[in-house]
Structures are given as structure tokens and as C-alpha cells.
């Protein structure tokens, strides 16, 4: 994760197309390993959105795609309506102080398409560590409601359009930085 995370934030904007080509080349070389279904899903996404999508990885049963915050609602709607990934299993925020960004990953699964039962599509996006905010996916996937609320209080990522960005699991009188930020240290450790 961190090996590709650190450099891409600074120099990715100019050569995004180059990146996609390399990742496509990777999948072609691994074609014997990468099953058809996963590849067809990614192909559909790339055909529709082209350069807006960066492919994190394609492994058997697991796909990761990375998008910019401006495109996430559009991509998520496509994933839901066309690819039929219909619910979010988890929303995981991770702090990367070295790359100066926070990554939020939506793990999406499907109940409606039987052949996708084993698949998890990770939809990842990034925001800066200061004034962190992302558009909420609550209007696309209702199931992210509590997950996004948890991400807000644990990492301090504000979700625009979410009805409640407020305390959920933490104590009422919590007056420290969001605990899953890396600079928050457990006492005595």
C-alpha cells in the first residue's frame, strides 16, 4: 500500500494515462492468474470512465480502484446501477502522514448478482490531512450511513451531504484529535 501511495500524490496528475496503461499491461501479463469476471468488471469501468480511474490491483475475488473525490459519486452510481454491487460492507479510513493524505476505502459487495457473491470491490479515494472532507455516498449506498459517521469521528474526515457528522462510538466528552490519526498515541506506548 505505502509503496505506491507516497509518490503518486505529487506526480500522478500529469501522467495518469501512463499509469493506466501500465496497470492494464500488468493485468495482461497476469491473464492466466486474473479470472475473467474480475477483468471484465474492470474493463467496463475503464471503458466508461477512462482516465478517471486508477486500478489499485486485480486479484482473484478482489478488485481495488482509486478515483478522485470529484468523480466518486458518479463512479459509485455506475458501480451500483450497472455492475450491481449493491451494498457497502465497510468503510475504512487510513491515515498516511508520509504521503500527507487520508485514504477512505469503500468495500462493496453484491447480494443481487449471484456470481459476485464472493467478490469485494474496493472503491478508494483520498483527501488531504488538513480540512479533510469527501462527498458522502449516502445517497448511492444507504448502507454507508454509520460507517461514514464512524470514519468522521475516528479520522476527522467530514462527509459533505451526510446528515450527521457527529460523535458515534467515542465518549460524549471526547476532546482530543481523532484517534485513528497516526499522531494520536495511546498513553504509555
Amino acid at each position, binding site marked *: *500500500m*505505502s509503496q505506491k501511495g507516497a509518490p503518486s500524490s505529487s506526480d500522478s496528475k500529469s501522467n495518469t494515462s501512463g499509469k493506466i496503461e501500465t496497470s492494464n499491461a500488468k493485468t495482461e501479463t497476469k491473464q492466466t492468474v486474473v479470472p475473467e469476471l474480475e477483468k471484465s468488471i474492470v474493463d467496463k469501468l475503464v471503458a466508461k470512465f477512462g482516465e478517471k480511474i486508477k486500478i489499485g490491483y486485480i486479484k482473484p475475488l478482489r478488485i481495488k480502484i482509486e478515483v478522485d473525490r470529484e468523480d466518486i459519486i458518479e463512479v459509485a452510481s455506475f458501480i451500483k446501477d450497472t455492475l450491481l454491487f449493491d451494498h457497502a460492507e465497510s468503510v475504512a479510513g487510513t491515515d498516511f502522514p508520509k504521503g500527507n493524505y487520508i485514504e477512505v476505502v469503500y*468495500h462493496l459487495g453484491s447480494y443481487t448478482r449471484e456470481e459476485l457473491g464472493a467478490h469485494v470491490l474496493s472503491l478508494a479515494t483520498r483527501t488531504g490531512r488538513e480540512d479533510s472532507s469527501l462527498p458522502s455516498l449516502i445517497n448511492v449506498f444507504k448502507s454507508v450511513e454509520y460507517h461514514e459517521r464512524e470514519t468522521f469521528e475516528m479520522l476527522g474526515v467530514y462527509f459533505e451531504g451526510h446528515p450527521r457528522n457527529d460523535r458515534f*462510538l*467515542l465518549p460524549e466528552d471526547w476532546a482530543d484529535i481523532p484517534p485513528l490519526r497516526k499522531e494520536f498515541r495511546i498513553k504509555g506506548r
Partner: protein
Amino acid sequence: MSTEYSNKTLEKESNAAGLQIVKESEEDRLMTLSVGPQHPGSGHFRFTVKVDGDYIVHCDPDPGYVHRGEEKMCEYRNFIQNIPHLERPVIHDSNNITYSYSLAVEELTNIQVPRRGQFIRAIASELNRQVYTLYWLAIYGIFLGHSTMFMWPTGDRELFIDLLEMLTGARVTHAFNIPGGVRNDMPVGFSEKCLRQIAYFEKRLVEYENIFYNNPLMRQRTEGVGLLTKEEAIKLGVTGSVLRASNIPYDIRKAEPYDVYNEIDFKVQYMKSSDCFARAYVPFLDMKESCYIMRQLLDKIPQSGEVRAKLQPNPKGPAGESYRRVESGRGALGYYIISDGTPKPYRVKISVGSFRNMLALPYLLVGSKLADMPSIYWALNYWPVEADR
């Protein structure tokens, strides 16, 4: 004296005295009730409901009373040291919550589990599923006012706890699954004892059905109560028995078989009625199916061989991430682990069924009667400690 009349006279009198009266608003008719966290019917979970007469018009879950920052704690310990504290969220189902963790770590560190180890894992996980479901059933029974249904499962749960104690050495917190296999081999005579207990338990399940599920009072309190349609279940992203009670046959053991589950013949248990009865009956069907699975596992297990892979001290793998799931007593239980190449995980995210099913609680409670609250709440198979992590 009608209220209209009294209001009018009150208005006149107060106007004469130069006073302003505050009129009763629509909101004033509602009463806010706090359920939990001390209320025995809520576990360690608090939610507030607003009632209009008998009916709930608003529900706001307020979890977090047992939040212990498991995910943060994981970042301070190495992959092996994390196991004992990761099972604390669900001590009654500790083999399942460490199962998916082990699978995710094995994927990251590229460890292969020996075949006998895979079978023992599955056996321990099925035993733990029985322990958890019986505990849940006991609570469900007592909150529907059926005290026999509290006593019987609590008693029969001891059978499986004894078996797990024989297998792992501890009654509830086993720390049995480790990346690379299980901690120790099955003791001599375990198979025979296990088969004996299963045979006894299957007879008991018939009695459970007769005394509880066929009880007209239980049926009245659950049938047609708290309907969660298939479309809504998908939209809310619920999992486990709640999902399967809404006519969606989805079980991770079948959808994405891990370890030896693809060699086992079993059916995904689901129901069409989508009400509280279905949500209460699906775990019961699961227990039956679990007995069937355990017989096969005990039959197919290799008679000898390693149960755990040789590990390096402080195992680590290349930087990367993995997301693995198992079917626990409360539905899909997934771990998302990011490793930066050191023996300690960079980030651990636990995706638990209870947290996901919590979203269905306001949906189901709003519009139902306050008296139906216990049957709806406990049928969600909700374990507050797991949801809080």
C-alpha cells in the same frame, strides 16, 4: 369539560392578566424514552425512542459504551500478539472473530495452513457458532418472557463449552486460531465425545422447536412483526441471519468458501417471511445445519498430520493489503489489514455484522409498537460489544 373549552377560557383569562400562554405543539405529545445502557434488555447499548402513545415514531441508536479501540490497539502489536485482544469483542464467538483475522494475515504473509489444521479450525468455528447462537437464543427467550427458553439453551451451551475447553484449554476466550493453523491438536477421544454431544443436541433441538418455536404466544409476538423486505435488506446492507430471513440465501461459507468449506455439503438456511419469526428461526436452522457440518468435518478430517505451519518469529510479509471474510454467528465478519512490510499491521479495520445490522434497528422500530421493541431488537442478532469494538 373539553380541552377546547378549557383552552379558550385559559386564553381569555391569561389575556386579561397580560400573560402569554405557550400552546401545546405536536412535538409535546411525544415522549422520549431511553433504552439502555443499564437496561438489561439492551446489553451495553443505548438507544432513544420517541413514542406517540403506543407507537414508536423515532429511534436514535447511541452505541459506544463498550468501545475499546481494538483497531487502534492492533497498530501497536505484531500479528501474533493481536490475537488475544481481538477476540474480546465477541468472547462467545471467539473462534470466528480470530478466524478471518488469521485468513487475512495468512494472505499477507503467505503462510499455508496444513490440511488437518484447516479441519480443526472449521470444527472449532462450528462449535463456537453453536455456543454463540445458544447464548443468543437464551436471551431471546427470556425477553419474550419464556424463562424455559433461557434455562435450556444456557444448560446445553455447556456441552459445547466443555468440548471447546477440551479442544483449546479455555472455556470462552480460546485464542485458538493463529496465522498458520491452530494452537494445538485435537486431544484423544475428542471426536467420540463430540459426536455423542451432537447426537444429544439434535434431540434437544426438536424439543426447542416444540416448546418455543411452536408456542402460540411466541408466534403471536414475532409473526408479521418488524417486516424487512428483500429490497430494504439489500439497501441497508444487513448480513447474517437478518439477511437470510429476508429471502436472500447468502452465506459466506457458501459464497466464498474458505479453508475446507468447499468440500462440505450443506444448504444455506433462509426464509421468505422476512419478519421477526424468520429472524429468530434462521439461527435455529443454522444450528441444525451446523450439527450436520460438524459430523462431516469429523468424518473427513485426516487422522494425522501437522496442525500449524512453522512460523518465523515475528512473521511479516511484503507491503500490501488483504480483505478476508468468514461467516460468524452474526453474519459476515471481515478484516481489512494494511501491512507496510513490518511485523506490525499498519491499519486493521474490523467489519462486523452487528455494526451493519444496527442500521436496520431505526428502520424496523419506527412505526411499530413499543411492546414489540424487545422482539425486534433481539431478533437482529445484535451484539453491542462487537459493534463497538
